[in-house]
């Protein structure tokens, strides 16, 4: 089983890297970009028997810092 975890800064938490990317896109002439948020994608290869609940637990304990980040799990 494979799982893909998306980790993003929560709404309301300033993302200075996303802002810098937005500025750079503007400088390249992409003037219709109103906002950029940058996150992480983590792919997990899981052994037989692993569950979505296990992945959620991994996110809570390590993969995301829920003080500043939100996450979503996609089972593939």
């Amino acid at each position: 089983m494979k799982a893909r975890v998306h980790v993003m800064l929560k709404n309301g938490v300033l993302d200075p890297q996303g802002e810098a990317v937005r500025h750079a896109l503007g400088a390249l002439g992409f003037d219709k970009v109103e906002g950029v948020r940058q996150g992480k994608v983590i792919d997990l290869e899981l052994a037989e028997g692993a569950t979505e609940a296990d992945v959620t637990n991994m996110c809570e304990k390590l993969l995301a810092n829920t003080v500043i980040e939100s996450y979503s799990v996609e089972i593939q």
Partner: protein
Amino acid sequence: MKAAVVVFPGSNCDRDLAVAFEQAGFDVSMVWHKDSQLPEGVDIVGVPGGFSYGDYLRCGAIAAQSPICKAVVDHAERGGYALGVCNGFQILTETGVLPGALLRNAGLKYICKTVDLTVATSDSAFTQGYNAGDVIGVPIAHHDGNYYADEATVQALKDQDRIAFTYVDNPNGSVADIAGILSENRRVLGMMPHPERAADDGHGGTDGAAMFRALSGLLTEA
């Protein structure tokens, strides 16, 4: 009076922190990240700056899961003293011993310079050698020192007088200019600036030395 300084792969302020404790009269032992126990009778644990585990995933995230960190959390939960500087502050927030998190600097740049801090409270073992309102010069050296906590948490820190230091001229975007905070029992301090780099005449400034002297005085009496 015993101090232990934790060493992670990638720590680079561990020896500076140990020297600052030693100069204040502490008996210091270094503790490796794979150890699962602190030395017997440790009064204070220092969690040093650096780039533990290469800052992989998030600054301090992997270190927070190391065997020694469990011992540090237990020590703090038992009411032991702990000082986390820079990466050490990041690690203490990742373990949940201190609230909030450290984000990338608002200006995106790594900043290495001496900054002015306002001592926001003298009511702690760490800051009792200062007067509230004192301005001290302490070096910062970080890329991810932008302190963030939600509004309710920041309000609680203010209401409980748990903000130890604020920046005079906020260099990194930290909420409420926060440079360092105390735990609820006031025995754990996390701060991005490096008091151990302002603790000896050779450093070009000694404004941080009062913290180690005060800790040493208090823990000797205890």
